[in-house]
């Protein structure tokens, strides 16, 4: 409850009061409430505030520069004050405590003030061992600068700090320095003066005593213009914009002094004494080949007062040329940037001077120049398409919008890698597929070659019987022809007989031709499988035709039983014929040891399971040992002295190529039966 209330009240209070609030709480806690319970509450309140403040300060540190939330930055100031309040709460009269009054020239809502306070807080935070009490005042002298007001303010401060001996007064801005120089004695008669955030010219004008040390800001119009020329190598002219307030004019004078009418061969024009609207209208007409430094516009020709950054933002928004500024508060509102350093860096520089003073370093120089470096707005560089390569290394680029790559580097890398891996995998698979395809084709070619070799071997084995078979018609032709020759030599040749002889010669010639045709078909080499639909019975017939002479030679009787009239299968018929011949030749060889009347070879075709066509080839041979029945299809398995052991292996390969199976079994009555089946090409109607 208390925590919430404190937190809420802290946020709800006006800014001045807010910075003092912890102090008040601490004071209240330490003075009024002595009982332990109350003390505990106090400690809790302090702790809670501490937590709140640190939480807020984290946010502030993170967001304070870019974020325009006054509240956040104020919280940073609050921390300083709060640290001081802690000191009071524990040891209010400690002489080792250094009390510091920070006197801001501007109002507490101005970015410059906020960021300088932030830089100061950061810089003073380095003094971990020294106890500090820090007080902050905002003069808002841009709007309240009458001597009467300043005197009243001095009186107020006098009253405020009468009982608090200040060790150091930090004057931020020339007006703050002027104020403390004018009213030092009532407010802080013994305090050391540290100044900052003012130009060298202002400093000369104010001429502080040598023991007053500080930081001089070089609002360096020359370096900013140089930076702009670097970014815009094709620039034709320079137009300097400034307001009508006295301060504005002093800056313009300074710029005239430095840039003159021509700077680096570029004509320099000065746009001043106009209303903001006129300035906007004028700058709108400018081309992109113009460099447009915007100085300060506290007030325009009509007397309207502005925060310079607001006025600069308006001009930058409509300007046809890239605009530049000298104040870091402008950055992020539309100007490209400038050589300026940042208010935070000024705050840090001032804090360094304060630490110097506290640590008693008398030898330090009176003034140091504020750290300046190019500050640029990434978005504007992008907007104007300016060459980032020309930027110096110390350039401070703000509002940098990380590219997708920078934001999601890991994700993109991972996704990219995943995609790459996937692509590689796909490529690999494609490659593999191609290789496999090629290998398949190659293996098919090999198969066809092997089958062809097997066919040739078969033809070789059959050659004796084929020769015999061929010799029959050839012998008949010869005998017929010679008989005719003899007949024709007689006085009265029997022409009828000769006619008959010639007819027979033609028949025998046909017979011989058929045999050769069959052989040629069997031996025909093919590069691809010749798929055809055919009747297995037909192929069986042609196989038996080829085999019958051999069977005759080997005294084997051949019988065939057809299971159906038509057994359609789809394959290469020559291959299937080869399988039948292989199996039949094996079967005949297996019957070699049997007496010739017992050598019986039987072919049988049938349809099985209504989906396959089966052919069995049974012999009355010696049979195969049961344990070898499966092995007979292995390559190089042979029982014949001259066998290659490839016949059955090739038969199996062929049958499996056409989606069939092949197997062997021993017949109970002796001998072996080899069977193969093939898918039925179409159902029997």
């Amino acid at each position: 409850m208390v925590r919430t209330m404190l937190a809420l009240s802290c946020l709800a209070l006006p800014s001045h009061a807010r910075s003092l609030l912890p102090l008040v709480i601490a004071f209240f806690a330490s003075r009024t409430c002595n009982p332990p319970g109350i003390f505990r509450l106090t400690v809790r309140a302090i702790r809670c505030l501490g937590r709140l403040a640190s939480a807020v300060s984290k946010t502030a540190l993170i967001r304070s520069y870019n974020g325009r939330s006054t509240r956040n930055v104020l919280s940073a100031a609050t921390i300083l004050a709060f640290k001081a309040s802690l000191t009071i709460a524990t040891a209010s009269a400690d002489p080792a405590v250094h009390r510091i009054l920070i006197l801001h020239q501007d109002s507490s809502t101005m970015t410059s003030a906020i960021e300088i306070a932030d830089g100061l807080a950061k810089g003073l935070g380095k003094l971990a061992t020294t106890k500090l009490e820090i007080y902050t005042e905002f003069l808002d002298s841009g709007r309240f600068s009458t001597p009467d007001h300043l005197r009243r303010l001095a009186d107020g401060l006098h009253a405020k700090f009468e009982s608090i001996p200040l060790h150091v007064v930090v004057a931020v801005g020339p007006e703050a320095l002027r104020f403390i120089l004018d009213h030092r004695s009532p407010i802080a008669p013994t305090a050391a003066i540290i100044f900052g955030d003012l130009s060298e010219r202002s400093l000369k004008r104010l001429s502080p005593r040598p023991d007053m040390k500080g930081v001089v800001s070089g609002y360096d119009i020359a370096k900013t213009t140089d930076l702009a020329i670097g970014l815009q190598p094709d620039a034709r002219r320079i137009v300097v914009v400034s307001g009508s307030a006295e301060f504005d004019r002093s800056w313009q004078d300074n710029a005239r002094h430095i840039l003159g009418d021509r700077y680096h061969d570029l004509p320099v024009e000065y746009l001043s004494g106009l209303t903001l609207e006129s300035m906007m209208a004028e700058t709108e007409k400018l081309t992109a080949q113009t460099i447009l430094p915007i100085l300060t516009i506290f007030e325009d020709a009509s007397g309207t007062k502005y925060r310079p950054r607001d006025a600069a933002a308006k001009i930058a928004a409509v300007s046809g040329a890239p605009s530049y500024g000298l104040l870091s508060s402008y950055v992020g509102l539309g100007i490209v940037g400038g050589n300026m350093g940042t208010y935070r860096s000024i705050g840090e520089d001032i804090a360094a001077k304060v630490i110097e003073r506290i640590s008693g370093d008398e030898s330090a120089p009176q003034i140091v120049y504020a750290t300046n470096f190019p500050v640029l707005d990434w978005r504007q560089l992008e907007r104007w398409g300016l060459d980032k390569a020309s930027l110096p290394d110390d350039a401070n680029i703000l509002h940098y919008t990380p590219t997708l790559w920078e934001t999601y580097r890991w994700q993109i890398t991972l996704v990219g890698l995943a995609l790459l891996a996937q692509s590689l995998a796909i490529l690999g698979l494609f490659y593999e597929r191609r290789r496999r395809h090629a290998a398949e084709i190659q293996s098919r070619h090999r198969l066809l070659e092997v089958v062809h070799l097997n066919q040739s071997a078969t033809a070789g084995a059959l050659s004796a019987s084929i020769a015999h078979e061929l010799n029959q018609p050839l012998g008949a032709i010869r005998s017929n022809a010679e008989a005719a020759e003899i007949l024709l030599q007689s006085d009265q040749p029997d022409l009828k007989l000769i006619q008959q002889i010639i007819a027979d010669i033609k028949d025998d010639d046909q017979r011989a031709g058929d045999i050769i045709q069959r052989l040629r078909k069997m031996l025909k080499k093919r590069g691809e499988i010749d798929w055809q639909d055919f009747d297995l019975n037909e192929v069986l017939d042609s196989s038996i035709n080829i085999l019958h002479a051999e069977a005759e030679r080997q005294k084997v009787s051949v019988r065939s039983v057809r299971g159906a009239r038509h057994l359609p299968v789809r394959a290469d018929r020559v291959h299937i014929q080869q399988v039948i011949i292989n199996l039949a030749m094996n079967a005949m060889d297996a019957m070699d040891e049997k007496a010739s009347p017992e050598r019986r070879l039987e072919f049988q075709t049938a349809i099985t399971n209504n989906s396959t066509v089966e052919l069995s080839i049974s012999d009355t041979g010696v049979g195969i040992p049961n344990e070898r029945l499966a092995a007979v299809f292995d390559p190089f398995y042979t029982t014949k002295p001259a066998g290659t052991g490839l016949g059955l292996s090739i038969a199996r390969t062929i049958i499996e190529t056409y989606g069939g199976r092949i197997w062997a079994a021993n017949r109970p009555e002796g001998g072996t039966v080899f069977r193969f089946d093939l898918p039925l090409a179409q159902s029997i109607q």
Partner: protein
Amino acid sequence: MTPVIHIVDDDASFRTALGRLVEASGFRVASYGSGEEILSRLPTAEPGCILLDLQMPGLSGADLQDRLSQAAPLLPTVFLTGHGDIATTVRAIKAGAEDFLEKPVSAKDLLEAINRALLQNEKRCAEHHRIDKLHALAAGLTPREFQVFDLVVRGKRNKQVAFELGTSERTVKAHRHAIMEKLEVNSLAEMVSIAERLGLLNAPKRGGSAP
């Protein structure tokens, strides 16, 4: 008489063609489709020869040759074969082939082989006739004379023959004279030759008693 050429081949076309050629060459022809067929219709005693295909289903050429040499010993066999490999040839020659021809066979080779076979057939027939005649002469001997003949051709002297048959040397001499007249020979050597051809010398001795 025109010789008959017996052609045995399972291939009707070849058989017919061969028959025509042989017939045109002036022979008579008898065709058979298988070994069994020729065995069932054994050729007559007419002169001729057999042309036999070595490769036929059923009875093999060699087996058939065995059977034929018994059933028709006077007919020489000429083998015809589709492939003249050494093993087949040796088998055929061993089985008593007169000749061996490879298909397809030219008319010249065939007719030469047929003529050789017919000559052989003639020889066989003449020999056959001679032996028949000797048998007829030998049949004219009395049993006693045959006993004496048997012993004499085995080299027994008259004295030994007389002793074995329990007769006198003079009686044996008389028998020998009668035998030489009946067998139409003039010397012992001729008698031995006849006995050899009749196969008496290989047969066991007939003993001392008359048949």
